[in-house]
């Protein structure tokens, strides 16, 4: 009974926020003589775009060459004929399935952990803002934003070693903790914009705090959760510094660290090394292609919203 009431409110509000949630700044530049497409600008932008694409093109084309073709040093030539043996060798040499699974587990754990812990904490903080404990907790958690990882790296290496966390699980915990500040900042800003009347109607129907959060607030937070999740994903998937220092056993390393471990073994088999690089970067690019809007909005919200 109370559950359906909460859900119904959540659905209607979600529709409302979907309509108003993402304000698209109206752009009016109705200027005389400026209505035409600026082709000069476009040519310059296309030239700049090439510098973005070129390293990616080289990565793909090198990975599809045969070893003898890759070693001739011409990075920009097309692979002829296309040869997938680089991928097979990289897969075997770096034990790709293991590294991929570990990277995936660390990243998934970071994403889920960040979204859950940050949203719960933010909800508690915003709803009890008049209490000193919750207010101070907010600033305490936010302070980590001013703490660069290298500053705490040595003690963290020492402590994870002592507590049996010098492994991917330890890295997951640290990734979550370093994502908290940014995520709580986004969640609290969003929570403050949700009108309290909504919750009151659910409360009158007898919903507990947990039910209200689970069925009303958390669904409402979905757009912010998406942003938080994507940034947690990118930070965790691409991180090199932390896993390389924290994870003691090199057989349990994440994909970016594996690339550095196998540098010497790749030697001049450039097709193998580039196939390995491509397999390490592809998942993030694929995720980006499907979540472009959130990625772009997230950067702006993170920097400008307050």
């Amino acid at each position: 009974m109370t559950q359906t009431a909460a859900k119904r409110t959540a659905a209607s509000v979600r529709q409302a926020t979907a309509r108003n949630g993402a304000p698209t700044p109206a752009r009016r530049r109705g200027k005389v003589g400026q209505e035409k497409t600026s082709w000069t600008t476009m040519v310059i932008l296309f030239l700049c775009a090439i510098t973005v694409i070129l390293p990616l093109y080289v990565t793909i084309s090198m990975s599809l060459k045969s070893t003898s073709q890759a070693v001739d040093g011409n990075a920009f030539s097309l692979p002829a004929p296309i040869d997938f043996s680089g991928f097979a060798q990289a897969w075997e040499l770096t034990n790709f399935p293991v590294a991929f699974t570990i990277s995936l587990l660390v990243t998934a754990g970071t994403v889920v952990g960040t979204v859950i812990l940050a949203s719960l904490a933010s909800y508690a903080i915003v709803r009890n803002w008049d209490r000193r404990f919750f207010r101070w907790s907010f600033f305490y958690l936010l302070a980590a934003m001013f703490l660069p990882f290298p500053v705490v790296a040595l003690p963290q290496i020492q402590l994870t070693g002592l507590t049996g966390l010098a492994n991917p699980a330890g890295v997951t915990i640290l990734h979550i903790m370093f994502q908290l500040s940014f995520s709580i900042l986004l969640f609290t800003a969003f929570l403050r914009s949700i009108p309290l009347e909504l919750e009151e109607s659910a409360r009158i129907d007898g919903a507990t705090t947990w039910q209200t959060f689970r069925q009303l607030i958390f669904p409402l937070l979905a757009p912010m959760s998406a942003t938080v999740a994507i940034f947690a994903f990118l930070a965790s998937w691409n991180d090199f510094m932390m896993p390389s220092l924290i994870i003691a056993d090199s057989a349990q390393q994440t994909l970016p660290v594996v690339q550095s471990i196998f540098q010497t073994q790749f030697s001049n088999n450039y097709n193998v090394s580039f196939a390995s690089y491509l397999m390490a970067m592809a998942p993030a690019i694929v995720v980006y292609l499907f979540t472009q809007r959130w990625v772009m909005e997230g950067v702006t919200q993170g920097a400008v919203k307050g």
Partner: protein
Amino acid sequence: MSTPVTTAAASAGALVDEAEHGKVDHLAGTRHDRRGRTRVDPIYYWFLVPTLVIFTLAITVPAVLGIFYSFTNFIGFGDWEFIGFTNYVAAFSDPAILASYGFTFGFAIVTVLLVNVIAFLLAVGLTAKIRLKAGLRAVFVIPMVISGIVIAYVFNFLFSNSVPALGSSLGIPWLSESILANPDLAWLSIVIVTAWQTIPATLLIYIAGLLSIPGEVYEAADIDGAGAMRRLWSVTLPLVSGYVVINMILGFKNYLNVYDVIIGLTNGGPGTSTRSIAMTIFTGFTGGDYAYQMANATMFFIIAVAISVLQLRITRGKAAI
């Protein structure tokens, strides 16, 4: 960690303002405490306290422990005793540490200027009247999602094979050798790859800034007969100055942590010419200099805090954006 994460820092200033107003969010409740306030539902503590505990164990304890050890002669294991500020005094005159600060700050300053100029101009282009706007923007953001060390390895290949090949075919002597092997030029490769990777986040913030400028301003400038360059310099730039400040500070803070890209390109070399502060600190783990490098890390922390305080003061002043 990666770039976008740190971009949030700027908004902390605005939040502090909001915090001081103390928004009171009471829910309809029946029970009150002595001061007449609604009693806090205990479950709120369950929402927050476990996170606080893990956070304290994972971040606060190591930070305090590290600063504590910086006043000892601890080598990472075994016995230790207090030695006061000895580590700090020694670090101040250690050429290796001073060189890493010199390199890192120089690198950060050059990179932040380069990145902001390019990102600003790209943002102006991407908000002008052009076709394929969304597609171009999507392409420019791609570098942001790629692992720093992996793309550094790709560039490593280009710098050591393709660029010298190009240089020798064009007959340019300094380009025909790998710049990674040249102690005077290796840092440039780190600037280039870092810029390549971090321009997207800066660019997106500038685009948001440019889109916030009302069209009327440009109409007025047109009526006054301002040309394109004049408009850019006297209208656009002053109006996005808040964004420029944010981008500069966030970028600078981020570049001070440079590590991944260096590992992928030069590994600190040739010699130690491109060794960053982070790399020097990490030598404390393998080199038996734990306490000594913690003194270094503590100094680095103080600098990071100082920059953050500066950032808060400036962004609070510019709360308008």
